[in-house]
Structure formats: C-alpha cells, structure tokens
C-alpha cells in the first residue's frame, strides 16, 4: 500500500515537474509589466547605497537582458547596412554593443533613485507596443514623459528597442548622428568605426 502510494506520489511529482518545465517557458508577460519591472530593477541599481562603478555594472547587466542591442545597432546604421560586408557587420555589432552599454550606463548613472510610473500601452502591430510612462518630478526637474518601444515578436522574450523622451526618439537621434559621421567622411564606414573605437576607449 505504502509502496503504491509512494509510486503515485513520485508519478505526481514527476508529472508536475514535466508540466512545469514545459509550460514554465511559455509564460508571456504584458509589455507594460515588463517595462515597470525593468525600471524597478534599474531604480534599485541606482540606489544611493551603490558606488558609481557598481551602478554602471548593474545597469549594463540589466541592459543586456532587456534591450535588443543588436536590433538597435542594425537600425542605427540605417541605409549603410546594405553595403557592409558580413565581416564589417559583425565588427560593427561588437563595437556598437560596447558603445551602447557605455553611453547607456553613463547617461543613467548620474540619477539616484529615479521613480518611473508606467501608465498605459498602445499596440502598434504584432511586433511593437509602445508603453507610456513618466519620470516622476522632483524639486530639481519637472515631469518627463518617456515612451518605450517594445519589440513583442517573441512574447516570451520582450525587448526594448527605443526610448522616446518627450517625443524625441533616442534611436533616431543615434541613427542621424551615425549617418552624419559617415557622410562627412565621404561615405566611409571606417570613419564611424574609428569614432566608435575612440569613444569606447575614452
């Protein structure tokens, strides 16, 4: 009797475990919850108790998990992508990731305990949802509207592709800056690579 009961228990646990493993990965998350959770993580990373170096390290880890760095890299290189060789693309994406993480963490590490309140979201299509939020005002600054372009193609792995601050897209600004560097150097993609290397090592 005991043996039969144990077998049933083992079967029950094994079945539960298999079901959990099978279904555990299929949980999808709503874009606004994803953004709120991400900003909460960033806010914790920016708390006063950490040094600037610790803040930067934590922010970089959060960005690697939640931002589609390669996607933004491909977007920001724009029309020049078409004339790049595969080797150049690979080199570019490596440089871009380093550049992105440096600017991202540098920009945010100056803040301490920022409070972001997520309001609503607007589904653009199957691939994109815009999540609206505000950076709560303090004595030093007024309220700032921040919209997040969330890439939703894989509902189990949502990724941020753009930040739109007061209607101004950071990805678009970056794209136009990269294009300007290439254009002012006679269309040479190497000029951008050199600028990226110089910036990263600075």
């Amino acid at each position: 009797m005991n043996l039969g009961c144990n077998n049933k228990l083992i079967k029950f646990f094994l079945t539960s475990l298999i079901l959990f493993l099978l279904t555990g990965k299929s949980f999808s998350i709503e874009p606004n919850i994803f953004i709120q959770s991400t900003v909460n993580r960033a806010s914790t990373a920016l708390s006063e108790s950490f040094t600037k170096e610790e803040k930067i390290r934590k922010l970089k880890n959060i960005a690697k998990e939640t931002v589609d760095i390669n996607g933004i890299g491909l977007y920001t290189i724009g029309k020049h992508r078409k004339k790049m060789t595969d080797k150049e693309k690979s080199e570019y994406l490596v440089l871009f990731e380093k550049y992105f993480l440096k600017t991202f963490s540098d920009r945010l590490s100056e803040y301490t305990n920022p409070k972001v309140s997520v309001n609503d979201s607007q589904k653009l299509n199957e691939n994109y949802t815009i999540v609206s939020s505000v950076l709560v005002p303090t004595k030093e600054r007024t309220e700032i509207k921040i919209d997040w372009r969330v890439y939703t193609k894989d509902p189990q792995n949502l990724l941020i592709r753009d930040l739109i601050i007061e209607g101004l897209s950071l990805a678009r600004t970056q794209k136009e800056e990269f294009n300007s560097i290439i254009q002012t150097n006679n269309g040479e993609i190497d000029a951008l690579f050199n600028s990226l290397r110089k910036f990263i090592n600075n």
Partner: protein
Amino acid sequence: MKKILILYLLSILLAFNANAGTDGENSLSKKNQPVKDCFEGLNRGIFAFNKGLDNIIFEPAAKGYRKLPMPIKLGASNALNNLSNLITVPNNFLQGNLGNAGNNSMRFAINSTVGVLGLWDPASRLGFERIDKEDYGQTLGAWGVGAGCYVVLPVLGPSTVRDAVGSLASFMGGDPWYNVTVKNNTQHFTDFDYYASRATSGVNFRAKNIDAFDNLENNSMDFYASVKSLYLQDRQKKVSNSKKITNTLDDSDWEEIETK
C-alpha cells in the same frame, strides 16, 4: 489687422513659391522628407561660435540662475510663459484652432491681472489649462509649408528656413510684445524690457536643460548632428500638433530590420 493680412499673404506666397516650377513636390512641400543641411559647413561654424558663446555667457548665467530661490525661478518662468501667449494666440487663430485661442486669451487676461503680470498662474486653477506654445514657423508648417534647409542662426541656434521666416514675421508686427516695446514708442515700455525678457527666456531654457545638454554633449560623437536631429524631431512634433508617439518615428525603418 493690416499686418496680419500682409503676413497671411506672405505665407501664401511662400507656400506657392515653394511649388513654382515643380509638380508640387519639393523640399519645401514634403512634410515628412528629411530636412537637408544645405549649408552644413557654415552651420557647423556658427554652431561652434554659439557653443563658445554658451561657454562664456549662457552656461555660467544658467548655473547662476539655477541657484536662485525656487519662487523667483517659478515666477520668472510663469511670466515668460504668459508673454508667449501674445504669439501663441494669433497662431492659434491662423491655424483655425479657435478653442485654444480662447483658452490662451483667457489665460493671458487672468494671469496678467489676477496673476500680477503673469508671475502666478491662477488661470490653471480656474480650468484654463496650459497648452503647447505656437509660433509662426509652426503655423507655416501646419499650412503645409515644408521646413526647407536646416540653418543654425548666430546666438539664436538651430532653425530651418521656414522657422526663420516665421521668426521674421514676429518682427514685422506679429509679436505684440515686440510692438509695444521696441517697434512703437508707447511710453509704458522700453527696448530694454523686450531684450531683457528674451535674454531671461534664453537663460531660463538653458537652466532647465543644463544637465540634459551636458549629458548629450558627453555622450555624442558628433554633437552638432545630435542637436540637429533633436531640434528637427521636436519641430516635427510641434508642427503636427500630435500627441501620437508613432508620428515621431519612421516605422518602415524598424520593419526593414525584421527581414535581416
């Protein structure tokens, strides 16, 4: 009234001139076409000059301004916002937005009197909410005139041909505050009042954005290009008078990378 009529005709002529000799599609008529940097060399030179001027005058002034007590900064900001209604209201009318024109006229009347020359903002408490500012460049844009080339003006900073023409309209009778201070001798105001208000407005703007500017400069490889991009995005948003987020982006660019 005569001046407004002249401005109206000037704008119509500008719009038609933009289409002369074309099929109606050119750089001044295509609303969402990228704005060309026709004078980039000169623009970069003026940008560098403005940056030098900023380092010597505006940034130190803005840093000093930030140290003023909050009530003084708030009062100055309110008064400048109140003055800006004098340009916003005629542009509300010109864009056919009578509701906003009425709201802003009431705001100006209440804040200039009850709010003591605009230092306080009792109008908001009375239900007349602050609405986005409008200018003649935005009105030209709302009428379908394209931005034209990107230009950097000495001291004043980033602009476009359309926005520069819009600014000229302010000096040709389109700005009642300019009219009563500089243009006409009204005995009540002097030139100093106008130029002091413009200078304070510049310092106030610089002070509000000091951290954002520093951050942008430190994280830009081409600061000129970043400022240009942000200015043009901001103007595109203001001209469209749209709160839609997607209007600030070209979605096709994002779709294109899906196929890669």
